[in-house]
């Protein structure tokens, strides 16, 4: 029996898809899991694969056409079946103008009669032995994705598109082992085909260079790409670098760690730097500002965005009112935000509306670097590693601890002299941490 195939929902949030390219034409054989078409969804171009086998009898949508989920897109059935009635039904009762099966009319009628006879006898045998009716290893024709509850939970959490996954359980049920590899690959709408590793060695021995491993962009990757391109292309960056004496800050931290030992709490150099930045922003509020088109907004709050590396990229949770919080409170908050960032549990509002950013690559032994501004914030501080260095103090060479920091400024908001004053203020705080108490 021929049937109309509707456009599946190819991503959890898809409410419209553009039929980018047909992979089959009328008359082509279709096997289960064959690619029928490529469809652009809100997230990516997805493969639309067949749950049915048969022959393509009609295409009901043109390339480039925008379609709602479940919109009729093609008819699949037995070769030679007359589908004009189905096509008319699909077109909402309109006269079938779409392409019809290429077979001549007379043979179509004849084979339709034959196939209906076959169907009748199949129905009889099905009634006699119902167990034969559903082959155990095939997905049911309903189009419903069969997946165990834990797979559905993982799909929700990792944004997996289960339609792209082949189930290995009974009746094609998708079970946990079928998605384990997708989950460990980071999830996010990963289709069934894109995670397969390239056949590298075979290709090399055949004299062909191996193809790259193609990974579709995750939502996070897309956001990073969009925002940073926008920042570098539209925000006039300039950079100011100073070298700080890190010894007082390290000494302060050592004292705090000792004091907090019994409470089993810790503060890091980074936590102290958040506090130091917040203090410096209070002293030089011109750096706590955003360029907003026809005005500059000088913020009356100090909300420090902290760059946190996660598996897929980076996020910037915000420590609100860092100037009014103690270092321990900041430390706890950063720890909690970072943990949830790694678990992808941060809410969008927790990453929005910072007024200044801090990015620290010291733990990777980076000496210094220039960070990209996180718009609409006016500046970002990039922190390098603490270095052991010989320094001259009172005319004597002694061992010292140094740390290089670079302020990236949006020149529309912060001029060179202002940025320099802010760094002076920062130096004052970092090299005399006790002033954070003020």
């Amino acid at each position, binding site marked *: 029996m021929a049937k109309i195939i509707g456009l599946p929902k190819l991503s959890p949030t898809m409410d419209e898809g553009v039929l980018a390219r047909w992979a089959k034409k009328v008359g082509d054989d279709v096997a289960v899991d064959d690619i029928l078409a490529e469809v652009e969804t809100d997230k990516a171009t997805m493969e639309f694969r067949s749950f049915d086998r048969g022959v393509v009898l009609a295409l009901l949508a043109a390339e480039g056409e925008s379609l709602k989920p479940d919109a009729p897109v093609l008819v699949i059935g037995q070769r030679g079946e007359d589908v004009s009635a189905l096509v008319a039904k699909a077109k909402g009762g309109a006269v079938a103008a779409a392409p019809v099966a290429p077979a001549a009319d007379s043979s179509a009628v004849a084979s339709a009669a034959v196939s209906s006879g076959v169907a009748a006898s199949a129905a009889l045998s099905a009634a006699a032995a119902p167990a034969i009716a559903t082959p155990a290893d095939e997905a049911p024709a309903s189009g419903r994705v069969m997946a*165990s*509850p*834990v*797979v*559905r*939970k993982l799909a929700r959490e990792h944004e997996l598109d289960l339609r792209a996954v082949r189930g290995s*359980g009974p009746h094609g049920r998708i*079970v*946990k*082992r079928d998605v384990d590899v997708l989950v460990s690959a980071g999830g996010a709408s990963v289709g069934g085909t894109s995670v397969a590793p390239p056949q590298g060695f075979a290709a090399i021995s055949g004299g062909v260079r191996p193809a790259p491993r193609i990974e579709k962009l995750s939502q996070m990757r897309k956001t990073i790409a969009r925002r940073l391109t926008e920042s570098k292309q539209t925000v006039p960056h300039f950079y100011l670098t100073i070298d700080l004496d890190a010894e007082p800050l390290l000494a302060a931290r050592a004292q705090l760690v000792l004091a907090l030992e019994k409470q089993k709490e810790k503060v890091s150099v980074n936590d102290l730097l958040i506090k130091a930045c917040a203090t410096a922003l209070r002293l030089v509020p011109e750096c706590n500002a955003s360029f907003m088109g026809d005005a500059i907004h000088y913020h009356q709050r100090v909300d420090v965005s902290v760059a946190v590396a996660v598996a897929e990229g980076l996020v910037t949770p915000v420590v609100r009112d860092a100037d009014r919080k103690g270092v321990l409170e900041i430390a706890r908050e950063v720890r909690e935000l970072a943990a949830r960032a790694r678990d992808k549990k941060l809410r969008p509002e927790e990453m929005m509306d910072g007024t200044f950013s801090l990015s620290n690559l010291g733990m990777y032994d980076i000496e210094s670097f220039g960070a990209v501004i996180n718009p609409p914030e006016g500046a970002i501080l990039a922190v390098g590693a603490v270095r052991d260095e010989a320094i001259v103090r009172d005319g004597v060479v002694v061992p010292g601890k140094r740390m290089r920091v670079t302020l990236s400024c949006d020149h529309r908001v912060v001029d060179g002299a202002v940025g320099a004053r802010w760094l002076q203020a920062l130096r004052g705080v970092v090299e005399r941490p006790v002033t954070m108490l003020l």
Partner: protein
Amino acid sequence: MREIRYREAVREALAEELARDPRVFVMGEEVGYYNGAYKVTEGLLARFGPQRVVDTPIAEAGFAGIGVGAAMVGLRPVIEFMTWNFSAVAFDQILNNAAKLYQMSGGQYKVPVVFRGPNGAARQVAAQHSHSMDPFYVNIPGLYVVAPGTPRDAKGLLKTAIRDDSPVVFLEGETLYGVKGEVPEVDADECIPLGKARVAREGTDVTIVAWGRPLHTALDAARVLEESGVSCEVVDPRTLRPLDHETIVASVKKTNRCVVVHEHWEHGGTGAQIVDVVQREAFDWLDAPVLRVHNQDVPMPYAVNLENVVLPTVERVVAAVERVTYKR
């Protein structure tokens, strides 16, 4: 730790509680002069005398009723059924008196009685003597139902049961009485709380829930499955009423799969109750339907080859685990 048999563990619990509390007495068929049908009460008459260890005629309804009455007026009777099959004769005393009087007297009467004896198939004692009676008793609010699978649990749970102010149905096993296991020293006075499950074996791929004799079947199956790389966690609820949801559900959330093994029939009972709890409280963690391995739905045959078909076996547990882990 020393190892003793299940039978000796039950006896120690009785002896320690008889010695500790003068209100405790033991009553039942052949508990005294014959030293117990399964030698659980051996030596207790000689040590505590006929006031504390009381032989009865073959009259379960009568001595179960005496137990309820004695408990109502402040004693702590331990009533032995020679097997739980015979409790059917005394069912009315347990259902309508032991389980009801606290509520129906508005709390004026507590009924601190323990009914105990062997439950389940004793191998080749045929249809009328092979019942697992737990499905009947777990259905009754007002009762504790306890089914220890190891000597340590038998001793610790029986001591708690005797001290508790509520009526307790205490299910032992004829094929368990010879099982040896670690038990703390005499007079260590270990009381194991009612209503707490125990993880008998830790694993990652599937949770097998089993109690009583089938606990050992499950542990044997877990050893077989380990060789093929399937890691089984075995959870023993120990108390069937109330059931410890928390431990079972936590385990299933870890393993994503669950098989329940029990020696009662399929329809109803603790086995079905556990499946209900798991599907309700761990739905989003399940990777497969919860399966059960249980007695076939027939009266127990006498012939040993047929009995082996009816009772849960290691092979059937292995098969069920392989199904929920999609290995067959």
